[in-house]
C-alpha cells in the first residue's frame, strides 16, 4: 500500500469524517499504545516492572483492602514491553492514529482488585463472577463548571474558526521528535493546510497553542507569555508523552511541566512521538471537527464492597 493510500483519509476534505483507524503506520513492527483487559489482569505487576517510563503502578490500599492498578497512557512511550511481559495476555497493543483525548483521565486505566493478602485472612466475601463495568464519574462542582467553560470555549472556537485553524507551536524540553512530527503535519503527505491547519509564527495570530516537550524551567515563562498574549477563545493541545505527563523525562531536574500544570489543556495526544496523523487528529478534536475514540477504562472486582 502506498503512503498516499495509507494516509488517504487525512489528505482530503473528507477528513475527519472517515474513520482514521486504518491510517496506522505501515510498519508491522510498530507497537502502538497498550489496551488493558482489566478483568483478565492477574495483578502480577509484570508490566509495571518492564515499563521503562513508569506509566504503570500497582499499589496496595490497606484501608480499603484492595490492590489498585493504574496505567497512564499520557506517560506511555509505546514501546510494547508491557504486552510482551504480560503472561495473561491482558495487554494488547493498538496501532490507531486517532488517539487524542479531551480529558486527562481518559488516558488512565484503573483497576481495583481484591488484595490476595487480605483474602487469605478471610475478610472478603466468596468470589463471584467478575464483570466489566465502566465507571466514569461525572465531574462535580468546580470541575463540572470548568468542563462546561472549556466546552463553551471549544464551541466558540469552532464557530469562529470554521474550517481554519492557526496554530502556534511551543517546543520546550523535548528531544525534537514531536516538534518534527508536528512539522510533518504540513508536509507533502499529511498536508495539514488542506484541513485549514496552518502553523503561524506568533501567538497573536493563533487560535491554538500546540505544546511539545516537558516544558523546562526556561520554557514555562515562554509558554505563559504566549498564552497570555492570545485572545479568547484560545485552545491548548499537548502533543506527545512529554507534554501530556513528562514521559521518560519524569524526575529529571530541568523539567517544570507537564503543560497542564501551567495552562489549561484542551486535548492530550499520547505517544512518543505521536505520528503526524495523530497530531492532526488532536488539533481537529480541539475544535470539535473529530471525535474522541480513545478512552481508558475503570474496573472494580465485584467482590469488593463499594
Amino acid at each position, binding site marked *: 500500500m502506498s503512503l498516499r493510500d495509507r494516509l488517504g483519509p487525512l489528505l482530503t476534505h473528507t477528513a475527519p469524517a472517515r474513520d482514521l483507524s486504518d491510517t496506522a*503506520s*505501515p510498519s508491522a513492527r510498530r507497537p502502538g499504545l497498550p489496551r488493558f483487559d482489566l478483568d483478565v489482569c492477574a495483578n502480577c505487576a509484570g508490566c509495571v516492572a518492564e515499563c521503562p517510563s513508569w506509566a504503570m503502578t500497582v499499589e496496595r490500599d490497606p484501608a480499603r483492602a484492595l490492590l489498585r492498578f493504574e496505567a497512564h497512557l499520557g506517560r506511555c*512511550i509505546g514501546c510494547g514491553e508491557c504486552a510482551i511481559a504480560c503472561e495473561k495476555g491482558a495487554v494488547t497493543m493498538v496501532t490507531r492514529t486517532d488517539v487524542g483525548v479531551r480529558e486527562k483521565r481518559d488516558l488512565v486505566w484503573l483497576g481495583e482488585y481484591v488484595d490476595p493478602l487480605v483474602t487469605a485472612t478471610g475478610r472478603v466475601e466468596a468470589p463471584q463472577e467478575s464483570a466489566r463495568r465502566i465507571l466514569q464519574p461525572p465531574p462535580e462542582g468546580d470541575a463540572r463548571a470548568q468542563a462546561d467553560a472549556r466546552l463553551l470555549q471549544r464551541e466558540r472556537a469552532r464557530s469562529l474558526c470554521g474550517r481554519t485553524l492557526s496554530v502556534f507551536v511551543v517546543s520546550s524540553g523535548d528531544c525534537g521528535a514531536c516538534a518534527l512530527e508536528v512539522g510533518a503535519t504540513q508536509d507533502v503527505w499529511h498536508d495539514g493546510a488542506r484541513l485549514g491547519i496552518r502553523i503561524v509564527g506568533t501567538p497573536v495570530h493563533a487560535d491554538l497553542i500546540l505544546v511539545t516537550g516537558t516544558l523546562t524551567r526556561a520554557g514555562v515563562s515562554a509558554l505563559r507569555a504566549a498564552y497570555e498574549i492570545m485572545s479568547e477563545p484560545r485552545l491548548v493541545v499537548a502533543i506527545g508523552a512529554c507534554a501530556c505527563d513528562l514521559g521518560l523525562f519524569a524526575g529529571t531536574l530541568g523539567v517544570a511541566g507537564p503543560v497542564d500544570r501551567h495552562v489549561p489543556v484542551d486535548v492530550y495526544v499520547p505517544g512518543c512521538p505521536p505520528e503526524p496523523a495523530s497530531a492532526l487528529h488532536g488539533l481537529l478534536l480541539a475544535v470539535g471537527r473529530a471525535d474522541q475514540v480513545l478512552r481508558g477504562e475503570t474496573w472494580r472486582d465485584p467482590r469488593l464492597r463499594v
Partner: protein
Amino acid sequence: MSAKAGLAHARTSLVASVRAELESNFKIAVRAGELSSNLLPCEAERSAVPALLGMLAGDLGGRLALVTASDDREITRAFSVYWIVAFDGAGIFVLVRAKVGEHDPTFPSVARALPAAHAFEREIGEMFGLAPLGHPDPGPLLIGDAWPAGVYPMRASIDPAVQRLPLEDPGEGALSLGALSFRLDGDRVRDLALRHGRDHRGIEKRLEALERSSAGRLVERTSGDTAIGHALAWATWVESVSNGTPSPRARAIRSIALEIERAAVHASAIARQLDALGATIPARRAERAAGLAREALDVMSGSRFGFGFVVPGGVRHDLDAEVVDHVLALLDGALEGLEACERLCSATPSVDERLESLAPVGRDVVRLMGVVGPIARASGVDIDARRDHPHAAFDVESPAIATGRGCDARARRELRYAEARASLGFVRRSVVALPAGPTIVAVSIPTPYRAALACVEGARGEILHFGVTSATGRVLRYAIRDPSYLAWRAALLACDGLGVDALAPALASFDLSCAGTDR
C-alpha cells in the same frame, strides 16, 4: 598495508610518542595494559593541565573533543575534571584527569588557547560549582533564571531519583519567546547570540538513578532525529564497560540504520535550507526524500525515529527479506526525491548564487572550535568517525566520505547531498550481503569503576558518550556530547554581520540541534 593495519600502526606510534612526551616533560606515567580500548588515560596535577593540553592539541596534533567533570567526593574526596583529546589518525583518545579538592573548587581554563573548551568549562562551572579560572566569559550556559541560586545540579548531594529543586518564577520579561537574539544595525545582524538551555532537561543527572533499560530509552531521546546515533553510542558504551560483543550481523544492521538516519536528517536539512531561501519546489522534493527515509526506519524498527531499535548487545529486530524489499523500495523513492531536488537546484542558478560565500566557516575556525561532522567536512577538514574511530560495522565497509572546499552554505548543501546519496548507496549494497549471526546477544553486568568512551558518527557529526560505572555497575557519571554542542559558536560567529534576509538560510545551512546541545 590495509586500512586496518594502517590504523593499528598509527595507534602504536602515537601511543609511543604521547607516552614519551608525558614521561619526559611532565613526569606522568601512563599505565600499560589499558590499550585494549580507545582510551589512553593519564592523571595530571590541575596546574599542569594547560601545558599538557597545549602539547597534546598543539605539537602532537590532537583535537580537544570533550571537557567534563565528575563529583567523586565519596570515593576520592575530590572532584575529577576530565579532558579528552582525540587523535583522529590513530583512532585513539587521550583522557587527562585532574583532581579538584572540595576546598578550592577551581580549575585552570584553557578556553583562551583552545576555544573548543569554551562552552564545556562554562557548563562545568554552573553544573558542578567548579570555577574555570581565567575563562573569558564564565557565565552560566544551560541553566537560566528559573534555577535556584547556589545549587549545582550535577553535584552528588542532589538526588537524581527525586526532583526537589523549587521552581523559581523568573518574573515578567525575563525571557523572550525566541531563543535567538540580535541587534539590527541598518539591515545588518549584530551581536547574534543564542540563549541555550530552553531544552535542558537534565538527562545526564537522571541517568545516575536509572536501570539500564530505562537509561537506554532516555539516552536515545537526547536528540530525537539522531536517536539511532545516540542509542548506538549508549549501546557501544555499555558493551565496552561490560565486555559484550554484538554479532557481525547486528553490527551491520546498526550501520544500515545509522546510514538511513543520516539520509533522513540530511534530506530534511536540505529541505529546511531551501525553504529558508524560498525555493519551495526543490524543498518539497527533499522533504519527500526525508519522509521516505523515515518511513524506511519505521518499517525496520517500528518507529519513524528508530527509537528502541539499537540496544546493548545488538538490535531489536532482524532485517528479513520482506523488510529489506520494503525498505529498499522506500529508499529508492528517497533517492529519486533527492536527485529531483538536486536537478531543480542546478536548473535554478539563483539558489546556489544566494548560498555562495554565505556564512563561511574557515578551516582554522573548524579546528580551533573543534567543529565536527558535515560542517567540518564541507570546509575541507576531513574528520569522520566512521573511518577515524570505527564503530558498528564501518571497519568492514563504510560509505564513501566526501569533503567540500567552499566552506560556505552552498558547500554544506552539496556535501549533505553527496553524503545522503552515499548513505543510500551503502544501504543498498549492505542489505544484500548481511553476515549471519544472532541479532542480539546477552550483555553481562558492567564492571565497577570502569571508564569508557563511545564515539559514533551521527548525522550531525561525531557523537561522544563518556561514562564511568559505579560500584554496582550503574552509571556514576555519564557525559553526552552532541556534535551540535561545538558547532553553535562557530555558526553564530559565521552568521554575525549578515544581512537580515540572509540570516535564516545561513542558520539553516548549519542544521544544528538544540535538544542535543541542551540535553
